[in-house]
């Protein structure tokens, strides 16, 4: 087939607004056309998701995980199998912004409940999301709001709400942090049953009025008897808030920005785009979906293909979905949940409340070796359904194939992935060592192996690390 510009664009869309895709899935979206593909992604509830019952029948540990690994396995399964790519990608986005970690929470079910909330509300209203976040037991325990008492305020949640979840450094004072924290006193999680002897039970939000500070507070220039919801409303009125969220969206979906702690000193790469998204947030009254619609249809998004370093999750899940490996119940999923951690992105356990550092910081000598090994091992496995299909498409309609054509066709089905001339020449040089490949019955198996080596080499290129 001829790769059109729109086909390449939809491939880009599925990498960014989704988690990559098999080639069949890419073709399904391509048949819709770009704008309709965006709408399909924006309306996940119209697509039935994977069979959850089949998943927990074969992975019962996901139905009430007693430890970190089964919890991560459940999350990883969602990433690999979702039929609602943007819903899952937005959950990952909020997991990055509102980073909460198992290392302290010690309760995978509560972490997974938070992820469910991100799936449900991720494309909804940011105000609703902030309120639900403030009432989320995993977040309450993670940022010590259970220790935030009327007579002894704890500022951890209040500070991070302002610094990392809504405004950014430089847009509030220490006094604001204290007053904000006072407004959230009494917002806690109820004492729940312990993991032993019968496993976890759901953890619920509890408001303790006797521990809430009902006295007057002055916050960001407003004075009154504020509670948590009032504080969130005042935050949303600040000019810094939509800009902060817009910059996060730009960083996650469009182009690598400096790390979040530097945002008060480093301007955005594309200030106009961030301002545009911020204005949209305000216009939509903080509804996220309309902003995403404009973002994915914008020129700055369409022109950003392969300009972002793929996060470990994007790299691993995108490659597995392309190769159609570990799709559906499989005992090897438990083993695979380690891979993102090896590359610096342990699911449900970010290094701190600041989340993961992104962009070039995903790449270091150790992580790069893991990344290259993982993707090349996967794409060289001719037994995997997706690899078999790619090879079948590469071979389609040709009795023999020159090294140049083999490289070109493999690049088409690996993205399509544009590579620099130097990279293309290196790939051709390798292919030339074997000369022409034949696709008749006698030579198919041998040629398939050669094509798989080429796919692995392409997956090992610098270009494939970007998405």
């Amino acid at each position: 087939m001829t790769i059109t510009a729109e086909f390449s664009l939809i491939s880009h869309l599925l990498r960014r607004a989704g988690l990559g895709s098999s080639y069949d899935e890419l073709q399904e979206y391509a048949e819709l056309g770009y704008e309709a593909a965006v709408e399909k992604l924006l309306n996940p509830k119209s697509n039935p998701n994977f069979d959850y019952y089949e998943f927990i029948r074969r992975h019962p540990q996901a139905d009430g995980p007693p430890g970190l690994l089964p919890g991560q396995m459940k999350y990883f399964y969602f990433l690999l199998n979702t039929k609602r790519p943007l819903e899952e990608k937005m959950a990952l986005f909020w997991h990055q912004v509102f980073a909460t970690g198992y290392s302290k929470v010690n309760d995978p079910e509560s972490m997974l409940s938070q992820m469910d909330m991100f799936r449900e509300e991720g494309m909804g209203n940011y105000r609703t999301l902030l309120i639900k976040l403030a009432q989320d037991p995993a977040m309450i325990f993670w940022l010590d709001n259970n220790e935030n008492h009327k007579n002894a305020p704890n500022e951890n949640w209040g500070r991070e709400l302002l610094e990392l979840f809504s405004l950014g450094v430089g847009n509030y004072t220490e006094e604001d942090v204290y007053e904000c924290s006072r407004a959230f006193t009494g917002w806690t999680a109820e004492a729940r049953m312990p993991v032993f002897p019968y496993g976890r039970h759901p953890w619920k939000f509890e408001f303790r009025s006797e521990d809430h500070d009902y006295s007057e507070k002055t916050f960001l220039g407003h004075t009154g008897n504020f509670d948590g919801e009032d504080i969130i409303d005042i935050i949303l009125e600040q000019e810094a808030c939509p800009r902060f969220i817009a910059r996060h969206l730009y960083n996650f979906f469009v182009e690598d920005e400096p790390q979040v702690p530097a945002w008060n000193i480093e301007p955005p790469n594309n200030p106009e785009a961030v301002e545009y998204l911020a204005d949209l947030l305000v216009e939509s009254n903080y509804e996220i979906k309309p902003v995403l619609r404009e973002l994915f249809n914008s020129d700055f998004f369409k022109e950003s293909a392969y300009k972002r370093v793929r996060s470990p999750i994007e790299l691993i899940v995108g490659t597995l979905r392309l190769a159609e490996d570990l799709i559906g119940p499989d005992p090897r999923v438990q083993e695979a949940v380690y891979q993102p951690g090896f590359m610096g992105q342990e699911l449900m356990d970010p290094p701190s409340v600041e989340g993961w550092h992104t962009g070039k910081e995903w790449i270091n000598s150790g992580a790069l070796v893991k990344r290259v090994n993982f993707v090349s091992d996967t794409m060289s496995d001719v037994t995997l359904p997706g690899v078999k299909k790619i090879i079948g498409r590469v071979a389609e309609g040709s009795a023999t194939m020159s090294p140049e054509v083999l490289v070109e066709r493999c690049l088409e089905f690996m993205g399509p992935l544009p590579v620099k001339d130097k990279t293309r020449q290196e790939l051709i040089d390798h292919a030339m060592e074997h000369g022409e490949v034949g696709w008749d019955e006698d030579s198919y198996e041998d040629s398939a192996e050669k094509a798989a080596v080429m796919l692995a080499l392409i997956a090992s290129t610098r270009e494939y690390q970007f998405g």
Partner: protein
Amino acid sequence: MLTTTVQGRTWNFSHAIGHLSISAEGFLFPYSVVTTDSGFMYVLSRAPDPKEDDGNKRSQPNFKRIGKWKLEDEYISDFAQNDIIWPVSLAVDEKGFLYCTDEIKNMILKYNSEDQKVFEWGVEGSAEGQFSKPAGIASDLAGHLYVVDAGNHRIQKFTSDGHFIHCWGEFGSERGQFNDPWGITVDSQGFVYVADWGNDRVQKFTGDGEWLQIFGVSSPDALRLNHPSDVAVDSEGDVYVADWGNKKVQIFDSDGEILTSLHGDATEFSRSALNFLEVNQDYYKAFKRAKDKSRLGVFARPTSISVTKDDRIIICDATRQRLQVYDKEKGYMDPEYNL
């Protein structure tokens, strides 16, 4: 409510067995329970998949196992740890041999009463005698084995040494067809009951596969089965269905009419849970401090049911890591109101 009485029948909750434990007197996702006439019970712990320690991160040892117990809540031993990958179901034949299905290995494993593996058979495929995700397994009085071949949507009948006899069923939702079936049982008259998981029903057959009856589809909407995982029959012909999707056990009479539902009544700790709490006082304190204990006793995901010859009903409450035990009272009569 610890006693359920309906139409002259009474089920009394007796006790819970086990707790969340990686070994010995407890379970890790108990997936199947089977009892013997000689007073023993085998419990299969499916457990999370193991992960070897490669020096980088946390490891996860293999806790999959079959536990052997006396029916009176006395742990004896664990075995089969290294034989099984994704074990699903257990059965005991009339000679006391134990069988275990494995849906990844596509095999049936056979153990003697000394817990030693004596035989195994099966390869992946769809031909006669081959398997795709074997699930439930049951034995009849003549020693035949019935295996739910879930991925092939059929039932296969074997001799006790693995020789294929015949099979029936195919994918679909018509009578005699299946959609990813799971549990199976054979009653004292040789009738075969299959938990047709994906079709939200139980089907009854003769031992030769002749279709007889459907349970669960004519019930009112609120009582419709939702992905039933297992089925068992007591000495009076009442049929117990593990209503996995609805997290309860439904009881039908032999005509297929719903009698009642059990939702789980284990509000008291099991013996082993009490032993655990006695030496782990922090957990006991945390339990005492917990605000909402209302759901302590209810089933979280019932997967398997076994009925003993004297109508003791043992239910795997998989996600709560325990068994719940009920006794059926026979010949019960409601007392006169004016007594």
